[in-house]
């Protein structure tokens, strides 16, 4: 709580009441035992994410961001430390209870969509409701699909949808149980830039209009620039936790090409190979 008042954010001024921490992890470590030696992937991480935030967790390969994501998603348990998800301590729960936590509190979006084969969009979205034992499934699933702009594609199979549309089905599936947060692992990683922009727009819209808490795990700075806060990991520790001064609005700015990004890096033009090869 005190941390919250110490933060210099504009929202704190706008809202007099302390917002609820959706994610509150305290000094979490995760050690993998590999036979004789053990590997500590997370070396004491504390992090709070509040309702309505849009956070990117960034870090290079091996920084522990996937491990952190698994713990945040209640797919894995920390070796030590505490994890309060929406006020519930989930760091000591058994697998069966965790399944319920995932069902009610977390909506997952994966890089590779993870849709069921030969299953209609409506059924895909109903899946969390089925495991949650919720009634009125098709109405809720329909509403979720409409909110991602797929109201006309209810009966389509994954093979009949574009990559962007498939990912939007996955977003609808993540939304449908009204979770405390959406956890997305490189959600645009398998998409071309146009579909990626489309998906990013959906996320931003959900965060802006419905106040849904979203956590991205990504290594792409361009994606991170679209979120409001960036947590950077390196070697199992948080090395930076910053608010984005002016988050990009998806679709408004063209992503610079690799050539533009690398402008001024090279010494001289290099064509590669012998000249004869080009004639």
């Amino acid at each position, binding site marked *: 709580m005190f941390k919250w008042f110490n933060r210099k954010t504009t929202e704190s001024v706008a809202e007099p009441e302390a917002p609820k921490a959706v994610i509150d992890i305290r000094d979490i470590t995760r050690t993998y035992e590999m036979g004789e030696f053990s590997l500590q992937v997370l070396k004491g991480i504390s992090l709070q994410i509040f309702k309505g935030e849009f956070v990117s967790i960034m870090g290079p390969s091996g920084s522990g961001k996937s491990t952190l994501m*698994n713990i945040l998603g209640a*797919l894995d348990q920390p070796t030590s430390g505490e994890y309060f998800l929406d006020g519930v301590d989930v760091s000591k729960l058994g697998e069966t209870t965790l399944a319920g936590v995932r069902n009610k509190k977390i909506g*997952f979006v*994966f890089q590779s969509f993870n849709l069921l084969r030969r*299953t209609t969009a409506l059924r895909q979205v109903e899946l969390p409701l089925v*495991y*949650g034992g919720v009634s009125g499934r098709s109405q809720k699933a329909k509403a979720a699909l409409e909110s991602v702009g797929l109201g006309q594609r209810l009966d389509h199979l994954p093979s009949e949808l574009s990559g962007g549309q498939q990912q939007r089905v996955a977003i609808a599936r993540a939304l449908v*149980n009204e979770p405390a947060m959406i956890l997305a692992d490189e959600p645009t990683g398998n998409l071309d830039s146009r579909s990626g922009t489309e998906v990013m727009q959906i996320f931003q819209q959900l965060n802006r209009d419905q106040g849904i808490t979203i956590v991205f795990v990504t290594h792409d700075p361009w994606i991170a620039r679209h979120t409001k806060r960036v947590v950077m990991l390196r070697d199992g520790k948080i090395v930076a936790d910053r608010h984005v001064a002016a988050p990009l609005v998806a679709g408004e700015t063209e992503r610079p090409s690799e050539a533009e990004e690398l402008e001024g890096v090279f010494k001289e033009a290099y064509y590669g190979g012998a000249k004869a090869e080009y004639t």
Partner: protein
Amino acid sequence: MNLIESFRIAINSLMINRLRAILTTLGILIGVGAVVGLTSLGRGVENYVSGQFTSLGANTLTVSSTRPSSGTRTVIQPLTDKEAIAIARLPGIQRVATQYNVSGTLLAGTESVSLTLNGVTANYVEVNEWRPRNDGGRFISQQDINDAARVVVLGESTVEDLYGDPNFNPINLSLQINGRIFTVIGVMENRSGGAGADQNAAAFVPISTAQSRLDNARVRGGAYKVSQMQVQVESKDAIEMSMAAIEVYLAGAHDIIYSGDEDFRVSNQGDLLSSITQVTGILTLFLAGVSGISLLVGGIGIMNIMLVSVTERTREIGLRKAVGARGLDILSQFLIESILLSLIGGALGIVLGWLISLIGGALVPDLDLSLTLDSVLLATGISSFVGVFFGLYPANRAARMRPIEALRFE
């Protein structure tokens, strides 16, 4: 998540992987079809064989002379026609056919045959359910017996031996038996089946002719010896009672006091029948066992496919767990899938078994093949057991998968 949802999910995943589901079902289908079909065949053979024996007289007792087992009594009093008449009057007894056998040589032209001639009574045909063939002949009549007529009825093999062709019609031809002229009055229809020697190698003469013309079987008191009696009882249930009644009567008639001194034996065709039934029962069991092996193979096929399916659908399992499926939900999904596969296979297998029995029945009209309820129940029971047993391991493996590893699986 309740069972109905698990069912829906399982049916959906089976529909999604239709071809694989059909191929898996095939293994169980063949196994169950073999069990049901072959059991039905085995039962058919069993029924056929016991039916044959019933036609030989399952409700027939045979009374014959025998050496006393005690060894203290050495005199054997022959059975007589007077005793046969008395036995026929015992309660529960339908008719008694007596028989007096003499050995004889039949001579027709230059061909001769030596055999045991059966001197029989007119009711031989009823007791043995064996009639002369329909070519103008007849069996020995009461008149023939009263007259001790010199007539003979031949078996087909005897006709073949004497005239070179079993289908030859020798009626009204004369032949010599032990040097006396006899007239052929009929040929018995071909009779196969049963145990023992060729029944068609026979010749029948009136019992009185055998007793007085071909032999001298007269005993003191004006009665005639008989070799054996065939006693037909009114119903199968009365067999034990009738056996006892005959034994009591004959013991009195032969002055038997001590057990072991009996110089006669009453035997029951049913004893032979039950041992034959036992053999065919073992045959049925054997067939069921062999087809049970194919059912086992089918079950292993299910397990194999389910294991492949679990591996192939690792990511799906990971996803289901990520969106809130508990281990139990995954377990029941896969278990229901395998049970459904084997039950559908079982149902189709019963149809296949029914077709096998239909085809078998059409190929061998003598066999009365029908699906028995117990084999259908057995097949259903076995196939659901196979589903549970061989589905449990893969389903458990799926249920125990860790969601992160499952999601990361390529």
